[in-house]
């Protein structure tokens, strides 16, 4: 009986413990910022892994999300709205929402899961203890390069996603509604403001930091063996997805 009553209470306590531990890790991360020079090569390596190697999947997902937006717009516009408005809808949808959101969700799987699995495996095989025993700061050596790389590279990935999303939208609009590039750009310019692009980049930096720091946190505090690593990786993906959706709303409410 007591167990039934205390189970949810214990869950709430563990939730807040987790949040407290996450913010403590962020404090340690900011403390380790002073050692960024020592970890510069590591950071560049991570920028390659997180950024450059994610480009193909970002191109693919953003291209199709732009295309599907154009198809759906065309379907809803039917004959009442001029076809060049597809450019407006695709442009606004991609820049404000689709490119940052789809990129964030895709990279949660590709980058977040990888980071947790890597750091978690290092934890359960005592490699992090070994680093500490060799007088290294594991937060500066393992977490700082990944979080820096994520925060720096995400905006570049979003810019690529913006470009291919809009391009995919035009390809699809051209194929479905015979919209010329001139018309599409005319529509795109109709509602476009530079702030739309800046807002996408603000989202990119926020999502980049959130995904990598959540992934590092779950990896760093992994317990148990292979099962623990698997569990931590799953939790990372779930928590990151929910956090991205939540941050997406918060940022929209704050800046739009």
């Amino acid at each position, binding site marked *: 009986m007591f167990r039934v009553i205390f189970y949810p209470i214990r869950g709430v306590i563990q939730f807040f413990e987790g949040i407290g531990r996450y913010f403590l890790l962020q404090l340690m991360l900011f403390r380790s910022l002073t050692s960024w020079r020592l970890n510069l090569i590591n950071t560049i390596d991570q920028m390659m892994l997180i950024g450059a190697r994610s480009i193909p999947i970002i191109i693919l997902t953003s291209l199709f999300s732009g295309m599907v937006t154009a198809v759906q717009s065309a379907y809803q516009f039917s004959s009442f709205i001029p076809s060049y408005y597809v450019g407006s809808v695709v442009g606004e949808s991609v820049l404000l929402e689709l490119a940052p959101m789809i990129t964030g969700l895709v990279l949660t799987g590709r980058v977040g899961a990888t980071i947790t699995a890597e750091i978690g*495996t*290092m934890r359960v*095989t*005592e*490699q992090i*203890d*070994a*680093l*500490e*025993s*060799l*007088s*290294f*700061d594991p937060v500066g050596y393992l977490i700082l390069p990944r979080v820096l790389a994520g925060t720096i590279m995400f905006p570049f990935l979003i810019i690529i996603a913006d470009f291919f999303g809009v391009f995919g939208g035009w390809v699809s609009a051209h194929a479905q509604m015979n919209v010329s590039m001139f018309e599409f750009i005319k529509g795109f310019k109709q509602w476009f403001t530079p702030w739309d692009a800046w807002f996408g980049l603000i989202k990119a930096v926020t999502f980049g930091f959130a995904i990598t720091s959540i992934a590092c946190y779950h990896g760093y505090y992994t317990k148990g063996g292979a099962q623990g690593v698997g569990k931590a990786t799953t939790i990372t993906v779930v928590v990151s997805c929910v956090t991205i959706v939540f941050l997406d709303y918060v940022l929209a409410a704050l800046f739009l």
Partner: protein
Amino acid sequence: MIQVENLYKELGSKPVLKGLSFEVNDGETFVVIGKSGSGKSVLLKHLIGLLKADSGKVMIDGENIGALSFKELQRVRQKIGMVFQSGALFDSMSVGENIALALRSKEEFTKWEIKEKVKEALEIVDLAEAADLMPSELSGGMKKRAGFARAIALDPQYMLYDEPTTGLDPVMTDMINRLMLKFKQQKEITSVIVTHELRIVHDVADRVLLLNEGEVAFNGLPAEIEKSEDPVVRQFMTGDSTLAIGEKI
């Protein structure tokens, strides 16, 4: 000198160390034995500050490492080398790079000196040919020796060994024991070895501590533990599970 005073530690809600006190003198090889789950590895992690005590002190050369700042703890850790049970080699680096990374942590060696020291450390453990191999390509014994090389490359004043011979064949066990003796004799290193293998007690120990359920059951010379009539000590030394102490099967 290592001094442990009244050390308590709980993991979860389970008490693991219950008021441990002992000293390890300079140049001594101190072997901590005990059943699996008796708190040996937890104790070892306290000696290098990987775990923080709930209460009590761990003093290294008179400094309470539980009260040190992060930077000060890093300075103290430079005196200590640790060999992990699984080797704990960084699996994204070759054996040579593992040792070089350890040396780079000191920031006082040139690239050429690091290269020479890596070579020297690998020769000591008879792994000169393995510098370019990845940890996944090594056997269990080779991983342990590579871990030794990484720890010894820093010329530590203290060495901590966590189950250094567990899972190895008798010949490899003998080789590891000889390595530990070599470090002691040639480099005058103070060592703390955590194990449940009595062969290490016979071969390398100057003094032995038997841990039983987080408490000191025996602390003395290897010759004394052989003669002890204490039932807990007798049970461990004979490996007889039918002796009427503690839990029964």
